[in-house]
């Protein structure tokens, strides 16, 4: 009843071309953003540190991969490595220039990932589908090898890991072991929200349409004057940029230190699953996917505790794996287009409810 667009007449193409043409959607977005910031100011350490910060970071990585796989139709298994490039680039930058605002380096480190991504995107002109996935797998293994074998990248640390140094902005500790969960959450939220907004703008404009054209019918796109290689490389660059920033955030504002194993093939697969479950070609789907893949196990682990079931932690862990796996299969059978499509159907139903005819 409340979700109605009756009476909302658009009198200009500007308002009709808006990303959220319906008033309720705009209000909803504003409400969600305000709520997200309020949680940051009031939420407990566990909620922020163990649930929301990683959820936001993984959502950002999923958006990055979705730009490439969902919007441009290029399957990539190198997400983890591209995130790693961002993290290591940020680490090197802040070691050399410790006085520069760390947030600047987080945002800049994405460009390094972007260059590497575009480089490994070059084969995409000739190969696509599973074969391209294998080519990006090469990126994954090569970069992972670099993270282990090139000691310069982790400043010749004996542990072979990067340890995030303490950095402050205006006297507030942002990174390092002494940074509070609230500060880190607010920083992550701001960056993720900003990049989401930019990505959403991009996919709704000319570039997004070019990407989708290449995805849906590359021959027709080419005959309409869209050059395939620059378009695909741009998709690789933008996607890797977003993934790179997500990687930098992951290490600097969540883990506080990382080894190369953080950016291994499992990470790539995890992000890919988020994209597939959330919905290919949907920004909001990336959030849904991250929520299911990352938050569902946390919730499930807590369930036996609520009912006071005396289960061993290991058993809970195994059960969680089984339930998550089963749920993923159920989601994929019920809605192969992901949660984003379910969301869309729900909104459509709500629009006409309670009189569907």
């Amino acid at each position, binding site marked *: 009843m409340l979700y109605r667009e009756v009476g909302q007449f658009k009198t200009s193409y500007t308002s009709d071309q808006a990303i959220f043409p319906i008033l309720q959607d705009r209000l909803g977005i504003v409400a969600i953003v305000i709520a997200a910031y309020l949680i940051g100011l009031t939420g407990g350490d566990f909620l922020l540190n163990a649930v929301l910060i990683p959820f936001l970071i993984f959502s950002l990585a999923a958006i990055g991969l979705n730009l490439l796989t969902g919007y441009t139709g290029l399957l990539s298994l190198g997400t983890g490595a591209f995130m790693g490039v961002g993290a290591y680039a940020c680490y090197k930058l802040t070691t050399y220039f410790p006085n520069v605002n760390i947030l600047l380096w987080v945002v800049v480190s994405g460009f390094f990932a972007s260059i590497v991504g575009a480089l490994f995107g070059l084969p995409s002109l000739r190969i696509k589908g599973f074969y391209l996935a294998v080519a990006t797998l090469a990126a994954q293994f090569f970069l992972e090898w670099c993270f282990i074998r090139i000691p310069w990248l982790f400043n010749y640390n004996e542990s072979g890991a990067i340890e995030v140094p303490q950095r402050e902005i205006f006297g507030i500790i942002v990174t390092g072991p002494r940074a509070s969960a609230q500060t880190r959450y607010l920083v992550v939220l701001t960056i993720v929200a900003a990049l989401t907004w930019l990505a959403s703008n991009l996919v709704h*404009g000319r570039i997004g349409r070019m990407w*989708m054209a290449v995805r*849906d019918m590359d021959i027709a796109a080419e005959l309409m*004057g869209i050059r395939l290689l620059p378009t695909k490389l741009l998709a690789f660059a933008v996607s890797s940029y977003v993934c790179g920033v997500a990687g930098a955030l992951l290490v600097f504002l969540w883990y506080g230190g990382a080894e190369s194993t953080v950016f291994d093939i499992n990470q790539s697969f995890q992000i890919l699953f988020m994209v597939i479950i959330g919905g290919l070609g949907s920004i909001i789907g990336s959030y849904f996917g991250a929520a299911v893949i990352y938050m569902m196990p946390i919730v499930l682990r807590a369930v036996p505790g609520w009912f006071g079931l005396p289960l061993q932690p290991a058993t809970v862990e195994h059960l969680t794996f089984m339930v998550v796996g089963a749920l993923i299969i159920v989601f994929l059978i019920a809605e192969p287009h992901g949660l984003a499509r379910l969301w869309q159907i729900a909104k459509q139903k709500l629009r006409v409810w309670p009189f569907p005819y």
Partner: protein
Amino acid sequence: MRAPGGPEIAVGDVLLSVENVSLSFGGVKAISGVSFDIRKGEIRAIIGPNGAGKTSMLNVINGFYHPQQGRITFKGKTRPHMQPYEAARGGIARTFQNVALFRGMTVLDNIMAGRSLKMHTNIFWQLLRFGPALREEVAHRVRVEEIIDFLRIQDIRRTPVGRLPYGLQKRVELGRALAMEPDLLLLDEPMAGMNLEEKEDMSRFILDVNDHYGTTIALIEHDMGVVMDLSDRVVVLDYGIKIADGTPDEIKRDPAVIDAYLGVAH
């Protein structure tokens, strides 16, 4: 209606000429030594039995295939190896025999995508979707709405094209090609698989495009009634060789064409 850069060509002058073009795939000769021209403002039909090389000819014209021999001159410029995007930039648009729409996108987005070439704001404005980027988006939306009105598809503009019936998909594909504001529009069997009513609609749209926008049209079609009624001149291919070229009346009487279509008594 004219892409920038090219010389002005008056109506009735040669817009595109194909000279002695040969194309083969390995040992198969798809086209051998075909020459013909397309004049500005006309509707030119390319007909012939199945496998005559008609679609290959269109693919050669818009740079998708590169002929082993021959020259193609478009708007006074001869290019031996033209890439598809160059052809598109030069003002050649086309539709496909089996609909090649962007299935995951709405009708509006499909036609907007047809205007990609004409949109120029850079990625930084695109990221902000503000100022020049938004103004450009709206300006092109206005042009796209004109095409939507022209093709009478207002009610389906927000529908993903994958859900549309075949006849409407063909119409949307025509709209997407029109969005490029081409000088030369190549239509590959625009009426294949349509019923009589849809064929009549499509014929009317083709004539209107030609009349209203002054677009030169080259079309491949199997329905002889449609071809004879619509086209100003017809070129007939058979086994990759040109066997006739002329007005519909001349073609109807041409013995070589009748033999090609009906077979020859031995």
